[in-house]
């Protein structure tokens, strides 16, 4: 932690329309996160954890309220600017891994790096180095279908870290893994991020995993159970 404010969420709400009904997934959240923090969003299913994470990851926009990232109101940014932000400043890890099934492990990492426009050699070298860092240097040519769940999630972590983002957002990264593998994956994610001084925000059900983070923010019914302002 640097004491430098990274996120400032002000009264953010997010509603969805399902037919005639409006579902409020997030209702008036205030939250601040500093650079270098490792934060866990915990709570039961439907508590709004993923919705909040998507707002923080610039994957969605709040229905009302504001989300400031490094002082910039994300609502004011155009789609292209948000895409650029996601590319350079944010890295996402999903509980379903979301690897491109037709690309091998190395190419999946390259998929995140490619829009950065690097020389082909450097693109490959960086991607391979990251795969080696997550222990999959020898499986670079394997397709996702040829990798175990843990291995796929490691590829996803390597992919998220490839552009040296300032924040890594992980949505239940252990959701599809057994507890041992899940613990290994979280350890890997947190250790790599700490080394790089990345901020990590992860959504989890698992109390043990939450204990490994600097701060746990508990949610229920789209609201924070306690103030999360620093």
């Amino acid at each position, binding site marked *: 932690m640097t004491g430098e404010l990274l996120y400032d969420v002000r009264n953010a709400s997010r509603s969805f329309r399902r037919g005639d009904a409006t579902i409020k997934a997030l209702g008036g959240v205030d939250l601040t996160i500093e650079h270098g923090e490792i934060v866990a969003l915990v709570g039961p299913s439907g508590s709004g954890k993923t919705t909040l994470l998507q707002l923080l990851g610039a994957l969605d926009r709040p229905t009302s309220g504001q989300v400031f990232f490094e002082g910039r109101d994300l609502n004011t940014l155009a789609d292209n600017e948000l895409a650029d932000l996601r590319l350079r400043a944010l890295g996402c890890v999903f509980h379903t891994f979301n690897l491109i099934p037709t690309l091998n492990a190395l190419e999946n990492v390259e998929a995140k790096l490619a*829009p950065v426009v690097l020389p082909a050699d450097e693109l490959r070298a960086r991607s391979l180095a990251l795969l080696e860092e997550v222990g999959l240097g020898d499986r670079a040519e394997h397709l996702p279908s040829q990798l175990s769940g843990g291995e796929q999630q490691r590829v996803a972590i390597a992919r998220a870290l490839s552009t040296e983002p300032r924040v890594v957002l992980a949505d239940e990264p252990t959701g599809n893994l057994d507890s041992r593998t899940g613990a290994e994956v979280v350890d890997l994610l947190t250790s790599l991020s700490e080394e790089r001084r990345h901020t990590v925000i992860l959504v989890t059900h698992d109390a043990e995993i939450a204990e490994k983070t600097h701060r746990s923010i508990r949610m229920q019914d789209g609201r924070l159970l306690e103030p999360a302002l620093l």
Partner: protein
Amino acid sequence: MFYLRYLRSELLGRRTRTILTLVGLALGVALVITITGLARGLDRAQKTALNPLSTIGTDLTVTLSPQQDTGGFGRGGGGGQVVQANQSAVTDLSKLGKPGTQFVHDFFLPGTQLTFPQKQTAKIASLSGVAAVSNGLVLSAVHQEGVVPKIVAKIKTGGQQLNIRRQIKPPTAAEAAAMQACFQKLGVGGGPQSGAQPGFGGGGRTGGGFDSPAARKCLPARMREFRARITTPQQTLKQVVSPPQTNIKSTSYTIGGIDPAQQSIGLVTPSQLSSGRFISKAGGHEVLVSAAYAKRKSLKLGSTLDLNGTMFKIVGLVRPPLGGQTADVYIPLAQLQKLASQKGLANVVLVRASSSSDVANVQKEIEQALGSGAQVASAKQVAASINGSLVDAANLSHNLGLVLAIIAAVAAFLLAALLTLSSIGKRVREIGTLKALGWSQRLVVRQVLGECLATGVAGGLVGVALGVLAAAAVGALGPSLSASSTTGTTGANDVLGLGQALARTASTSVSLTAPLSLSLLLFGFALALAGGLIAGGAGALRAARLRPADALRQME
């Protein structure tokens, strides 16, 4: 480059989907190419076979019907003339030559069209609105060749037996002495030898002998009577003569006389040449043979054709227009007039109007000028007289060809679009992930379009290849369409009873092809590409415009 590797991985990694899209596109393209090609083929066949007169520079054909007297235009004689002329087709064996010799003989029959003096066409040429006229003589011919038969009647005679029984009493001694004395007196022989039959046989040394009338008187009366004349009963011998064995072969064909000096209008024109050259303007012993007749008779360019003993050289093969005054062989008019003893006569006039709008007026004028015996047929009427599967198919093509081509094109386009959209619909998850990773909307659309382009190009190429193969198959299998036109029977059946035999039925068989052109292939190819790219672009744009969270939510 990463994006190209990604593109290749996508296409090869999702092989089933790629192949399905590609095959769908290819079938659509092939369908468009084949249907359009077929429609073109029918159109082309229709132009050559069903629009006959325009190809011989003619708007109207004028003939004379034998039903009525011609009021001075024709040679006169009406039906009677035709009957008489046609009856000349009787083979007189006695005039063919010596028995055993080879003969070739052609009969030229006017059929059911009256001949008229060539000079009379000036009457038509002088009418206003007539740009050009040309004479023609179209005759039905019977060609006979073989060996002149020997006609021999064998009559057997003789072999009749005359049985005469008569008891002759030998001469008495007195009679014998009297006979000897009489013979001696006459100076005949030395009298009968002992034991010999007196008075029979020669034996006489002198000219009178025992047979002389004087010596006969030396015989007794009963012996004299026996030596008198024997007359057998008179009878008439009858022998049936078998018809002679002959090898005379008769074939019929039609022959047209054309004016070689006037090549822009005529029964055939140089534009109908399928090979060889046209008859030289000077005329001469040159003949044009219709391609169908040449095929039937195995005639080739350069070979000779024996027409009533005159050898004509085949200088060209032609495809005469259907429905007009067609013939199997064409020779200079003067030559035909000479061969058929129809000097200075023609039986068809081809007329070209000054402009297409004048045709109806010119037709009326000619009918008025020539009287009711003249039959003036316009190109439209000739085309209407043509029937057969080609007409049916052409009508079908005319009515449905364009619609079918449009339906095929729309179907191909929609198929390409639907397959692409369906393919993109299944990739929303992937597109959401790419956007979450930081791919811009433009980059996502570009990537998807690249894939559509590759699929479109491959599908288009395969489709073009399939289309070319299908067109080639149509050409190779060659389903043939026929068109036929019968001329010369109008009313003649009833009047003469000859009409059926003398009618000229011209028919043509057109092998259906599906001619392709570079523009058609490009059109089919572009259609697949456009379908894929437009649908791909629209689908990709729609998916890429989704917020990443929404795209990711859709996949769950």
